[in-house]
């Protein structure tokens, strides 16, 4: 292939014939902004960010679709191009929540909250799991975001959380088409495509089927190539940007696919395909289930030895010693039964141990259980009791065999009938915790990297076998690392192929790993009808409890719940809160009372979906029951006539200031309500607010309505206008309350805030909610929640609120579920299958 030469931005550039202008520029180190282009995709020309000027060519061609030609003169930067690109970007952003990009407080806010807040619906960068890797954000910052002035037109599509492993929020989609194009490239026939037209065009499956039924193989490529937060890996999304990406091999099945292991610190959060091609794609197990197996809470973590009928946790030395002694007691009738799902090094040592002991060696394919044990004679001997003792590395012996055996040493990662029956249980580091090599069914030998920390005291299998051999006085097991074993492996057979490759269809997914049912550990796999052990129903709907009278999503991610709570309503006062538990297994979570009706015996709260507790609550449908409602709690807001009062509310705080405004107004104050939101489509309860105040002022972070900024800017405006303010109330996120308090402090205006620390009981019994106010420790539930904003130790509050940040991510449900986000389904989904914008 010949070379051609062209000029880009005044530089002579040489490229291979057939390259596009964009490729030519990129090779020459010249950056042209683009979103829809991707090195693994053919040019598409959807986003139109990569426009350039070419001498002799009319208009502004997209560089990604224009082939480079000899002698071409290309300009990538000009005032006109910049304007055009910015207009394009603006249009793109109008369909993508973007308030944070143009927010005047963004830097302070992101410094204060270095990690995005986990949220059900993403309404801004600060609530987006993809924030740190977002291509639009990068482009917007390069383009000076303040110049982007088109407000968000929120699409109001349903959140799609009903499929296993994937969360989809098409309200963030900019229709770059990367997802369906990569799907087509890898699978030939894409499971997803652009459906509908014009304004309602979006990505979807044929006939809006679930992805499970759409032919999707759950390879995750669409998630990994999506430039926005539209498509997300449910398990990994909130852990943030991976700290390392390491090539490795999946050993869940004999296919032995190459993976890129993504880790955050010492924790594996996902596997990704090493390259976007049909040859390197992954199945749902390798892509999604794998990290959930590795991080399963039920993992075996301590060596156990049976003493007096009970399995007792002991140290490694005692466990190995006990195992060695027990096995020697049955010398001559020992078998080693090993699953093929381990590294070659592990398998080699199992075989070597069997040889040294004169024991029989049985193997089980990595995706099978006891029925597939080979050789057949061994199976018979196990059943007949000819074999007395077994070293086994999985759930690989059936009940009747377990009954026959005198001594079992289980080397495994998960509990099973085998480990329960064993005399010694040795916890094994598996999958991404173990270094070595793997021979796949195709015969290739591939590297397996140890990238994550093993749980508790678990050790790699080769090390366990080595130590066990040494404890039995066997020689020839003196290895210091797995790599010392590798050269000893002279001939190892490739494992048998699966009858059908799981990569091609979810119907081919194997159900077992080392004999364990994968669906027992990764419950989402039940969506694919993989087998599982019978398990107890985990959560029952509350039979009695408190009826949910009304539930709607008033604005995206903000839900109004009206609950029958006759013991609360007659006693509720402004500023108080209730503790809610959606289910018996829920946390006790506090929510400020927004309204109440003593006669009807009902209360109203506004809940923003940010974690498991709020998710459980907002997922309930009207008519359902909330397991527990406790309240009213906290000290009511002091209602006195003070003069002119400004009440600032943001997010859930808009609802929270409503009853205080009402009471202060009734007490004869001049009440000014200042409400803020990221964009005007996130403002709610305005007419209700107007009815309880003299003046309603609005601020938006994206400037789409009212003051550009937050309540502190409204306050400054009032002061500058010479308005007298006697006291100020701010309720919203910690950052907002802090900013508002800092704004009023120089003017010496008394400022009340409603603090929101982590609580447990809410009645003053535990002190989880302690805050420092004026140097003294107070309980927010019993002494508050309302305090003097100028005396609060905000840094301490911020830290204490983040005490369980990591656990809160772990707590998010991983099960596929029917999303019950009310408004999208019942109210605003029109007959054309599209949602309508909320008024």
């Amino acid at each position, binding site marked *: 292939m010949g070379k051609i030469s062209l000029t880009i931005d005044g530089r002579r550039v040489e490229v291979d014939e057939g390259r596009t202008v964009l490729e030519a520029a990129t090779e020459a180190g010249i950056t042209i902004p683009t979103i829809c282009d991707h090195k693994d995709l053919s040019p598409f020309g959807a986003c139109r960010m990569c426009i350039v000027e070419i001498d002799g060519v009319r208009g502004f061609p997209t560089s990604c679709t224009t082939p480079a030609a000899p002698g071409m003169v290309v300009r990538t930067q000009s005032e006109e191009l910049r304007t055009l690109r910015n207009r394009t970007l603006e249009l793109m952003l109008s369909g993508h929540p973007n308030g944070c990009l143009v927010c005047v407080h963004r830097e302070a806010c992101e410094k204060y909250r270095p990690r995005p807040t986990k949220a059900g619906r993403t309404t801004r960068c600060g609530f987006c799991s993809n924030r740190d890797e977002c291509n639009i954000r990068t482009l917007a910052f390069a383009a000076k975001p303040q110049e982007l002035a088109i407000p968000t037109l929120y699409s109001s599509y349903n959140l799609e959380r009903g499929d296993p492993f994937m969360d989809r929020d098409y309200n963030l989609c900019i229709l770059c088409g990367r997802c369906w194009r990569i799907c087509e490239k890898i699978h030939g026939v894409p499971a997803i495509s652009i459906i509908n037209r014009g304004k309602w065009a979006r990505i979807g499956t044929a006939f809006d089927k679930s992805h499970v039924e759409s032919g999707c193989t759950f390879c995750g490529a669409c998630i990994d190539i999506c430039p926005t937060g539209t498509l997300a890996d449910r398990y990994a999304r909130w852990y943030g940007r991976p700290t390392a990406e390491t090539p490795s091999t999946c050993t869940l099945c004999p296919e032995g696919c190459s993976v890129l292991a993504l880790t955050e610190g010492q924790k594996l959060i996902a596997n990704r395909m090493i390259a976007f091609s049909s040859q390197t794609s992954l199945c749902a197990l390798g892509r999604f289930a794998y990290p959930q197996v590795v991080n399963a809470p039920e993992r075996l973590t*301590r060596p156990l030895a049976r003493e007096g009928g*009970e399995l*007792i946790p002991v140290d490694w030395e005692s466990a190995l010693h006990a195992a060695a002694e027990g096995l020697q007691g049955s010398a001559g009738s020992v078998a080693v039964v090993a699953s093929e799902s381990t590294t070659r090094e592990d398998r080699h040592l199992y075989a070597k141990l069997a040889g040294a002991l004169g024991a029989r060696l049985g193997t089980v394919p990595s995706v099978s259980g006891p029925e597939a044990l080979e050789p057949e004679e061994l199976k018979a001997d196990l059943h007949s009791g000819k074999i007395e003792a077994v070293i086994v590395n999985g759930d690989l012996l059936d009940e009747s065999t377990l009954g026959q055996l005198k001594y079992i040493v289980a080397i495994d990662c998960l509990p099973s009938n085998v480990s329960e029956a064993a005399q010694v249980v040795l916890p094994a580091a598996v999958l991404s915790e173990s270094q070595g090599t793997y021979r796949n069914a195709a015969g290739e030998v591939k590297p397996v990297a140890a990238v994550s920390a093993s749980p508790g005291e678990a050790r790699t299998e080769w090390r366990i076998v080595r130590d066990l051999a040494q404890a039995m006085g066997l020689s020839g097991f003196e290895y210091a690392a797995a790599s010392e074993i590798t050269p000893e492996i002279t001939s190892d057979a490739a494992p048998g192929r699966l009858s059908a490759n799981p990569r091609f269809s979810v119907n081919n997914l194997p159900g077992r790993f080392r004999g364990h049912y994968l669906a027992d550990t990764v419950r989402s796999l039940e969506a694919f009808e993989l087998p599982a052990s019978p398990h107890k129903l985990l959560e029952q709907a509350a039979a009695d409890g408190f009826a949910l009278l009304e539930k709607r999503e008033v604005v995206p991610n903000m839900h109004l719940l009206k609950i029958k709570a006759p013991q609360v309503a007659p006693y509720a006062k402004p500023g108080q809160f209730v503790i809610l538990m959606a289910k018996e297994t829920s946390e006790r979570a506090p929510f400020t009372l927004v309204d109440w009706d003593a006669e009807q015996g009902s209360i109203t709260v506004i809940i923003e979906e940010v974690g498991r507790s709020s998710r459980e609550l907002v997922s309930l449908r009207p008519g359902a029951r909330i397991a527990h409602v*406790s309240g009213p709690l906290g000290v009511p807001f002091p209602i006195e006539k003070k003069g002119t009062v400004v009440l600032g509310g943001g997010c859930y705080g808009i609802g929270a200031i409503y009853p205080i405004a009402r009471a202060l107004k009734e007490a004869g104050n001049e009440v000014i309500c200042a409400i803020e939101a990221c964009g005007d489509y996130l403002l709610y309860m305005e007419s209700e607010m107007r009815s309880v105040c003299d003046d309603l002022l609005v601020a938006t972070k994206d400037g789409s309505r009212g003051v550009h900024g937050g309540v502190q800017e409204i306050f400054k405006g009032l002061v500058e206008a010479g308005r007298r303010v006697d006291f100020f109330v701010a309720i919203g996120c910690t950052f907002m309350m802090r900013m508002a308090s800092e704004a009023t402090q120089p003017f010496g205006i008394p400022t009340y805030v409603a603090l929101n620390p982590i609580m447990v009981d809410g009645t003053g019994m535990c002190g989880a909610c*302690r805050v420092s106010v004026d140097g003294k420790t107070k309980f927010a539930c019993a002494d508050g929640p309302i305090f003097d904003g100028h005396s609060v130790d905000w840094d301490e509050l911020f830290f204490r609120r983040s*005490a369980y940040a990591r*656990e809160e991510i772990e707590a998010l449900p991983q099960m596929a579920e029917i999303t019950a986000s009310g408004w999208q389904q019942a109210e605003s989904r029109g007959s054309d299958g599209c949602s309508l914008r909320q008024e």
Partner: protein
Amino acid sequence: MGEQPVEKGSAPAAVQPKPRKARVPRQPMPERDPRRRRTNFEEVPKGYSEETAIVEASRCIKCKKPFCILGCPVNIDIPKFVDLIAQGQFMEAFLKLKEQNSLPAVCGRVCPQETQCEAQCVMGKKYEPVAIGRLERFAADYAQVHGGVPDPERAPSTGKRVAVIGAGPAGITVAGDLAQWGHEVVIFEALHLPGGVLMYGIPQFRLPKEIVQYEINNLRKLGVRIITDHVIGKTETVDQLLKEGFDAVFIGTGAGLPMFLGIPGENAIGVYSANEFLTRVNLMRAYDFPRYATAPIRPRHAITVGGGNVAMDSARTALRLGAQSTIVYRRSRVEMPARAEEVHHGEEEGVVFHLLTNPTRILSDATNRVTGMECLKMELGEPDASGRRRPVPIKGSEFVIPADTVIVSIGNMPNPLVPQTSPDLGITRHGTIVANPETMATSKPGVFAGGDIVSGAATVISAMGQAKIAARSIHKFMMDGAEPPGQPPTLPQTPAR
């Protein structure tokens, strides 16, 4: 280890003709291996077998003047129930217990018998006292396992209504007695599950929650209405309850206000009150995460400050969550208020004790998470008001114990919610409610109180004892002075420590 170990030299079970009883030693109760139990929440002692129970019960010499009854805050007829066990009449023994004690399965587990009934046992003067607590537990468990316990008889309705505030040991006891005597009883509980400290405080490995809920169900069978999620003081006040048609009110709201050390760094992440720590684990089941949503606590090294039973519970719970667990107590072993058995269990499981050590400062990192605790060595000085020798700091003896979790277990104050909202209720300067010890009547007519809200933080059984007295006075108050059925309790003569 077998299920029913019998101490060496002891007679094997009841087949033996009555030997010289004193020769039979006190029967040990089989316990789970400390190495196993420190990794999970299974109950530690496994209870007596029928055979062992008979052997142990046969050790009772049936004194003419049974001092043990005087040692019992609820005056159980101990010799009688023990004798019934000795005769193999287990269900009868249980019914005997039930006459005076509404929660035998609970008390058999958590009562400090060594300072109450067993401290009075004549056998204990020369040998070891009869294991009354273990026998109580045995009889209660036997009845629960074998079922067939007849539902307690209820007297015909009196038409009187009683409100009980708090579903803890005191509230449950009052409610049980009053319901049995024909009154309509409504219990108001602030938390989402009834049981009070039995649910949120005492850990699963010491008192399985299933036992508490079994007792609560029995209460419901008696017709007692238990309304959870109802915070009296924030909803109705005591005055409103009386106005709403309750003839009497019993306040059993307990001591639920945690005390902190008041040292620098106490608001760092990883510092818990024992109440919070235990509530998260026991009531909210943080150990069953992610099935239960409560964020798990994953301590690597936990320090518990304090020397009481709650401190032992906290330290042993921390151990079960995977921590290296240390107790820091400013006095010496002798002054420790915890039961000897609890301290012993903690030691067996591997809790490390730093005695005569006082925390001075909690250290934390840049993100405000605990990294350690600075302590000062102490020595014992002159006795203080409590009669215990006062710990005096040794100058310059500061040292740091590395830790990521600190559990402050230095006691609880009475819960102020109800007293705050009942202005005419007599309150002591400690925040407890003033009640006549003979009637448990407060300064407010028709209002009675008992348990920790009156006595300050004490034991389950002392709360129950007070509740028994209160129940009788409430009955008399409502029924124009008529005595309720059954024996009036004598005031317990709990010996001083």
